[in-house]
């Protein structure tokens, strides 16, 4: 075998291996999604969405409480996280652009993004749950918003920085004050990017379990009261999947399917928006 052949064979082997790696990666995706789909579809009855849980070990019932609770917690987290994140990102990219403070806050945001979510749960337990003497939906939403804020803040900062500076200068020349320039021109220019960031950050927090365990806790009953413990899909999945009852397992799969689809749709929507924006 000459050296030429050897090189070719080596190349072939290495490339086959990397193709194999890609196949393995895709294999897991198909396997996990397929499993969730198969088991989940079997559990998707109307009653899953419109009934409340039955007593432990009793067949039937649904997860209406968890669906509604999850929506409320995620919604409130978004209502806190998005404005704060977008405004904060605005400060970094506009008023503090290039200053040390902007760099510092950027770095701190990155640290915040990497803080394990369960630590954030423990933090919120100490500052909201224990002093106020009750687990609450608010505490859960607040924990999620703490995860959300740095993500939105950093995306906003990046997206605003991409808006050409000349655009702002043109507006300044017309005598517009900075805040009007930001709201009417810069935001418009970066809107799709920011929207994508928001969608992805919602997708990120909607699947979080760990920060909710000690904050919004769980509730066997239907409740929309954010001052009390409130059910969420993720915590319910944890409880049900770890539980011994067949009906719990099946409902956990159903819930898993719904939440996975929701998050994948958000992610795909985010990508599509980016792509659509790219084309323009």
């Amino acid at each position, binding site marked *: 075998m000459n050296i030429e052949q050897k090189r070719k064979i080596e190349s072939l082997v290495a490339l086959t291996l990397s193709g194999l790696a890609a196949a393995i990666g895709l294999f897991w995706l198909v396997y996990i999604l397929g499993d969730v789909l198969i088991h989940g579809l079997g559990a998707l009855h109307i009653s899953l969405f419109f009934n409340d849980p039955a007593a432990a070990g009793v067949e039937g019932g649904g997860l209406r409480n968890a669906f509604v609770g999850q929506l409320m917690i995620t919604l409130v987290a978004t209502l806190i996280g998005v404005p704060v994140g977008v405004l*904060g990102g605005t400060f970094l990219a506009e008023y503090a652009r290039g200053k040390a403070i902007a760099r510092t806050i950027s770095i701190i945001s990155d640290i915040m993004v990497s803080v394990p979510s369960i630590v954030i749960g423990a933090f919120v337990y100490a500052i909201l749950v224990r002093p106020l003497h009750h687990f609450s939906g608010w505490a859960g939403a607040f924990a999620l918003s703490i995860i959300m804020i740095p993500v939105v803040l950093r995306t906003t900062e990046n997206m605003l920085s991409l808006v050409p500076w000349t655009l702002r200068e043109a507006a300044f020349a017309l005598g517009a004050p900075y805040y009007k320039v930001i709201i009417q021109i810069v935001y418009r220019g970066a809107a799709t990017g920011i929207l994508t960031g928001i969608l992805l950050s919602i997708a990120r927090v909607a699947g979080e379990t760990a920060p909710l*365990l000690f904050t919004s806790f769980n509730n066997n009953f239907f409740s929309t009261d954010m001052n009390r413990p409130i059910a969420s899909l993720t915590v319910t999945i944890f409880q049900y999947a770890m539980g011994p009852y067949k009906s719990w397992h099946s409902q956990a799969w159903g819930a898993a399917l719904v939440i996975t689809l929701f998050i994948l749709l958000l992610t795909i929507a985010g990508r599509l928006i980016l792509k659509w924006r790219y084309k323009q």
Partner: protein
Amino acid sequence: MAIAPKKNIPELLFYSLTAVASFTVIIFIIGIIAVLLKESSLAIGKFGVVGFLTSTAWNPVTGMFGAATTIYGTFLTTGLALLFAIPTAIGIAIFVTEIAPNYLKAPIGIAIELLAAIPSIIYGMWGLFTLAPIMSKYIEPALQNSIGKLPLVGILFEGTPMGIDLLTASVILAIMIIPFTASIARDSFNLTPSVVKESAYAIGATKWEVVKNVVLPYSKLGVFGGVALSLGRALGETMAVAFVLGNSHKIATSLFDAASTITVSLANEFTEADSDIYLSSLYYLALVLFVMSFIILAIAKFFLLKAEKKYSR
């Protein structure tokens, strides 16, 4: 470059609004550090730093706590997961950037990103119901009967193959971080200037030689940064491992032993710690985890900033 706000009221208002909003992250980080320190002060006082980190005790009956077993479990699961994930992830990145025909690049890229978006609790649940039985019935006995028979390494495969153990947890963690690592590696690979690659091809290099000698060295820093970020992610992961780790506060010698990580201990024991020193020790664990993920992020940033400088040159 930045323009100071003019002194009119709406301008000032908007300026302060954005400033306050951005300062919330500073408040959060200070708050988290302060709370962790305050809550763990009791345990820090009782066990000290070195004493806590090196003690393998975790005994709620006697009130003696140490972090060694959970830190060990955390490092072992994360380390194994990276061992499985990095080669696969880099393989995927090579495939997507260098080999795949153009019409496959986008779909595979999207598929990998979807895999990254699946919530960790789904991985955990899937691990318990699907992967653990497969591991205990087929893979682990097979390992035991092959590698397990060898001297020295055999000890790693001792015990009953339960499927609820370090190995299963590491595999799930690996599946979870593969897409994350792969997409960072892909982005770094894509930064290799095509001129450099073209010239390598021009002198007759094979595809693999281009990858090995041009792309990989060029994007090394970015990949290191990506690996460090994945490490941080695996370290802080709770739900994916909580289902299949078996929650045992012991130093495992076999991959088929149950173990515990810092995150899993927190998830399982936090609402249940009935004595002050117990809860304080859990907060102390959280603090240790926080510091660990901070250090790893710092390493990741170091590589990524260096990479950024290199590419921008």
